[in-house]
């Protein structure tokens, strides 16, 4: 197992290097001369050339890349061309905020998703089951930006319960901070419940019909104990692997949700830097995203391997 993990980590590192090269290559194609962006539309051509020289924009691409990579590895993430400030603190703050949003959403998806799956399984075939199915299906069938708008209209504009956007730091008070987190979290959670709840439901149904559970019931154990302690524990295995994948999916979801709610996280930073051609920020941000995404997927794979007896104990087991 340890060898497998080590191998995967090496692989991830190589992949990250490849991603950085890919991003660099793509950004050299971005149609906007950075020097003009900095100097403005009336810059005389000599000035533009001088700045290009200073920024090293005339060097061959591979040279620019190596220079950037060297700086990056020594901790210098460069300076945002647009905002004239070092990227590293900017990125770390944005990352922190995105992680908060993602983790809170993740926990809620797990809890609510599994809970709904259990309810649907217990009331299998009856109205609560159908309601849960339809509601969660709606969640994933409609794009996140739509739900985000619905949340803003209903909760912020009509009811006035929630603030429409933005972000208040923890220093402004826990209640304030939490309140601003609700709308984007709600949107993300609703958009991802279905995967977990459906899988929990179907695996719970299977387990509830298994001899193991029948035996537990026959022993006269109270239903609640049977369900929670015996059935759920076994039904959870597939759900956990899907959950681990959801973390990666959430990272995609934050791009749209952070943009709409003006939540200053990593997703919004990526969109902003693409739209404004802030290449250094874009590269740093994408690399961080790729790293997190890769590790989230690694964890998902490990969990899947660990929990799936077929793989854990060899192809011929189970």
């Amino acid at each position, binding site marked *: 197992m340890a060898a497998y993990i080590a191998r995967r980590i090496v692989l991830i590192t190589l992949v990250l290097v490849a*991603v950085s090269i890919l991003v660099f290559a793509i950004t050299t*194609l971005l149609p906007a001369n950075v020097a003009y962006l900095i100097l403005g539309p009336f810059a005389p051509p000599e000035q533009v050339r001088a700045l290009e020289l200073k920024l090293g924009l005339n060097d061959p691409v591979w040279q620019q890349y190596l220079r950037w990579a060297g700086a990056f590895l020594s901790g210098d993430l460069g300076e945002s061309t647009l905002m004239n400030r070092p990227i590293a603190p900017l990125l770390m703050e944005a990352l922190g905020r995105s992680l908060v949003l993602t983790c809170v959403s993740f926990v809620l998806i797990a809890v609510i998703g599994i809970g709904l799956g259990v309810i649907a399984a217990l009331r299998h075939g009856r109205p609560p089951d159908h309601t849960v199915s339809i509601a969660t299906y709606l969640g994933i069938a409609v*794009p996140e930006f739509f739900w985000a*708008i619905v949340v803003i*209209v209903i909760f912020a*504009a009509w009811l006035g319960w929630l603030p429409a956007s933005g972000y208040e730091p923890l220093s402004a008070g826990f209640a304030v901070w939490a309140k601003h987190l609700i709308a984007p979290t709600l949107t993300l959670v609703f958009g991802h419940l279905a995967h977990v709840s459906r899988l929990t439901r179907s695996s719970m149904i299977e387990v509830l019909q298994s001899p193991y559970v029948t035996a537990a019931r026959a022993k006269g154990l109270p239903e609640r104990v049977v369900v929670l302690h015996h059935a759920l524990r076994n039904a959870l295995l597939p759900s956990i692997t899907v959950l681990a994948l959801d973390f*990666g999916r959430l990272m995609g979801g934050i791009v749209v949700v952070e943009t709409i709610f003006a939540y200053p996280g990593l997703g919004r930073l990526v*969109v902003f830097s693409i739209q404004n051609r802030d290449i250094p920020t874009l590269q740093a941000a994408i690399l961080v*995203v790729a790293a997190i995404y890769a590790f989230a*997927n690694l964890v998902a794979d490990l969990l899947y391997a660990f929990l799936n007896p077929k793989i854990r104990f060899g192809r011929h087991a189970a």
Partner: protein
Amino acid sequence: MPPEGSVFAPRKPLSPQLKAGLAITGAIILLGLLAPWIAPHPWDTISMRTRFLPPNATYWLGTDEYGRDVLSRLLMGTRLSLAMGVGATAFSLAIGVPIGLAAGYFRGWIDEALMRAADVLMALPPIMLGLLVLAVTPPALWKTALAVGFVYVPQIARLARSVTLSLANEDFIQAAKARAESTSYILFREILPNAWPPLIVEASLRVTYAILLGSALSFLGLGAQPPSSDWGLMISEARSFLDRAPWIAFAPGLAMCLLVIGINLLGDGARERLDPRLKARVKA
């Protein structure tokens, strides 16, 4: 000999799921195909006097900020969404299936190289990769479809590879090898026909991902351009008017919901029919 549980196995009744999926998806496809003929009003003509009308007898789904009929725009947009979903997925298949076949059949360094390349593309959340690729060129819907297809190539390749791996050891392949059939024969006449069913089922689900991702990119400005009635663009433009004319946003939202649910039901139903024991892990 095709494996057991083929989609085309006769005399097995269609599940309610499959029936519902076929009905919904079929209806939407039909509406989309017939759109230019059945749309009651022009979809892109500005009309000053009919702005912001709520749904009524003449304009079943109301009108938008330019006085255009929402229903007609929705119908024309159906073609765009279907084209996006199918086009992107077709592109994914066209590139991903050969890659997967090659990786799964030849193994060795070809397999390693192709799968590592796939890893690099999968290193970013799909929407970010799409954003990056589309940022380098002036926006257009067909480019978005290609970008979305490109983003999903690795997943298709992986699936094709795993299906090929499992098929490569089957007796009928060994028999073909023993008969000294050419590699391309084995790949395209023996493996591919048997690999299609799971691939098609997966592809049908990919269509929904493609539609959702494509509309997210349109929403962010990187897909269809005004005055196109692409559903993502419609929702994006409608959000300034949510309080006075919510129907402009809700119509495409609901339409997208129906289409995705329909295709999901279709795909799930087909998959269950194909092999009830198949619990393939689906990566978005």
